[in-house]
């Protein structure tokens, strides 16, 4: 076999050996081994098959050195190549003096250009992955938010999206909303672990069961949360606003702030560190056109991943969407209350009364339901004498008394004008009569403004009581009619008294 074939075989074997060894270590080990492999190949060929034009073969070593170490490789390989040639007494001509450095520098520039292309490609890929992921999350969050009307559900959806792996992958997130007086941020809801170990357990469960974002939403909805302790802790936490805390700065600037280390002068940071062990976190304000709602804190105590501006920026559209949804849910709640409650007294209105009575009669057939109807005696006289404004005050005062008298067993309603109703579940006629009598007595003893103008010098009420004990198959209209007739009887028989249906029927 000719020498060339042996040399070729040897080169290939050395190339294979280089590859077998170089991946066993870290990146730098790989680079050193491949450069060393080329050097060993050159030396072996030079020693085994002299004389040959080893000057050209040295270009291989220089090339690989440059690919592996760029600028350092350029210098290092050129110096070594010249040193080797001198040690082997190889005549050093002008061609080597110019070709080696020229080749090395050109290759270094080329590699630099390739590196740039690679970086750009990687950056483009990262950006597209982020963008598509963000789009997918928004799609899901928007769909979920459309289905909900309550503040709690909006917060749950947002926190899950921020912390889930399918979402933005932050380890923890806690939402604090401004208190009514604006002096505090009150802990509302949180998701994530209290300790790293707890975080790993949760993470393991999620991976084992291959939970998706929607599974996590569902678990939150059914309160089968994997991170209850943090939520409990945050719900009992209030952060005092002293004027220049990190949260206030974020709210004033209406932009997120990343806290890289705890500043002892900021009491809020100290509190977050002592209670939630937050060391590095971001605070993101919640606001909408009408005002500020609160803030969200996010951190990574488990993965210890650095919170970057890029990732925080990605969450912002989600927090804006959640802020609007929160505002809308607050509006919805207010409108719902306005629709259900009487604007003057704050008691439930006639519409809710009708709904409730139907529901009570339908669902509580096995237990007695009682109804108390009451009316202020001579209220027209009161209004004519004292004016409607004072009359309204009396209605409010009486409504407060009824609200506190009914307790948890039922509800109080403004039935219309100066007439009120109390619907009592699981209450017998005897017990209802007793409650009615207590209320009548309380009203009689209570001092109302300008009540001396009333006949009898006191403001009194007449009360009618009925119960399903009399007839369990009664319909709502019949039930109300019976109580109304009892009330009519109380009015007709002298006022300021209680008449129960049983007495009236009998």
């Amino acid at each position, binding site marked *: 076999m000719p020498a060339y074939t042996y040399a*070729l075989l040897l080169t290939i074997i050395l190339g294979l050996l280089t590859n077998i060894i170089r991946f066993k270590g870290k990146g730098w080990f790989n680079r050193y081994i491949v450069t060393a492999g080329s050097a060993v190949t050159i030396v072996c060929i030079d020693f085994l098959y002299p004389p040959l034009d080893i000057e050209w073969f040295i*270009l291989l070593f220089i090339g690989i050195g440059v*690919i592996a170490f760029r600028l350092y490789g350029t210098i290092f390989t050129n110096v070594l190549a010249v040193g080797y040639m001198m040690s082997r007494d190889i005549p050093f001509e002008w061609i080597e003096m110019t070709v080696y450095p020229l080749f090395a520098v050109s290759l270094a520039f080329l590699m630099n250009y390739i590196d740039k292309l690679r970086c750009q490609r990687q950056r483009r890929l990262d950006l597209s992955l982020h963008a598509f992921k963000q789009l997918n999350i928004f799609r899901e969050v928007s769909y979920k938010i459309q289905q909900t009307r309550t503040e709690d559900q909006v917060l749950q959806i947002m926190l899950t999206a921020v912390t889930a792996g399918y979402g933005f992958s932050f380890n923890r997130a806690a939402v604090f909303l401004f208190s009514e007086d604006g002096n505090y941020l009150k802990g509302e809801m949180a998701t994530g672990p209290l300790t790293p170990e707890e975080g*790993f357990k949760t*993470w*393991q469960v999620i991976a084992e069961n*291959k939970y*998706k974002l*929607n599974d996590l939403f569902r678990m939150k909805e059914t309160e089968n949360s994997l991170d209850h302790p943090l939520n409990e802790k945050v719900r009992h936490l209030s952060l005092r606003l002293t004027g220049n805390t990190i949260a206030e700065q974020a709210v004033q600037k209406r932009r997120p702030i990343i806290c890289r280390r705890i500043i002892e002068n900021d009491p809020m940071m100290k509190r977050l560190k002592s209670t939630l062990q937050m060391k590095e976190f971001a605070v993101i304000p919640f606001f909408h056109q009408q005002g500020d709602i609160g803030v969200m804190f996010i951190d990574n105590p488990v993965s210890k991943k650095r919170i970057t501006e890029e990732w925080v920026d990605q969450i912002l559209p989600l927090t804006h969407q959640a802020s609007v949804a929160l505002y809308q849910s607050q509006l919805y709640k207010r409108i719902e209350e306005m629709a259900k409650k009487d604007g003057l007294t704050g008691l439930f209105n006639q519409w809710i009364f009708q709904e409730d009575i139907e529901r009570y009669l339908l669902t509580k057939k096995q237990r007695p339901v009682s109804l108390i109807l009451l009316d202020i005696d001579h209220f027209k006289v009161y209004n004519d004498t004292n004016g409607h404004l004072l009359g309204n005050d009396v209605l409010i005062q009486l409504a407060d008394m009824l609200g506190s008298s009914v307790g948890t067993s039922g509800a109080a309603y403004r039935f219309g004008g100066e007439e009120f109703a109390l619907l009592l579940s699981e209450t017998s006629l005897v017990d209802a009569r007793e409650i009615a009598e207590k209320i009548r007595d309380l009203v009689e003893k209570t001092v109302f403004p300008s009540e001396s103008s009333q006949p009898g010098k006191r403001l009194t009420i007449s009360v009618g009581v009925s119960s399903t004990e009399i007839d369990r198959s009664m319909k709502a209209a019949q039930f109300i009619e019976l109580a109304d007739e009892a009330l009519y009887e109380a009015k007709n028989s002298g006022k300021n008294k209680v008449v129960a249906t049983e007495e009236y029927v009998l």
Partner: protein
Amino acid sequence: MSGFSIISLGFAFLLTVLLTGRYFYFQEIRSTARRNMKELEVELEKIDCSFEQLVYFITLPSHLPITENAAKEDIHLKYDVEQGMFPRLIGLKVYIENRKDTLMIAYLSMEQFRIPMLDRLYAREEMTKETYRKIASAKMMSSGTHKEIIDEVYHQLKVGQFDMGG
């Protein structure tokens, strides 16, 4: 030997290194992972991994003809490997391929591919980043993981990523 022969030897070395690099890189990952898993007394196939970071480039469930008519066999995986002297697994591309068309529908980045058990060891400083990466790469390269990913992608194509019905 002539100057040409000597240059061809240089090319031979370079080609050997370049052409077999990927093979030896994958082999090394597999053997390192096997060794490490033996030390940890766990089987690579049995450790749980997460596909949470599998990013889809299409709306799910998709109504594109190529995805709507796709069978499980049409879903193919391709490694995304950094080319050149120093090969490195950087991700996994998910394609739908049929006779007419090929469409890349999802991508799982190696950087984002997380394994809870390894995360715990890494956080406790019982594992280096390099070892984590090698084991995670081996997990990504395992046939069991490929099957799981294909099942997952097929399910998403048919049902939707977020199971909107819920």
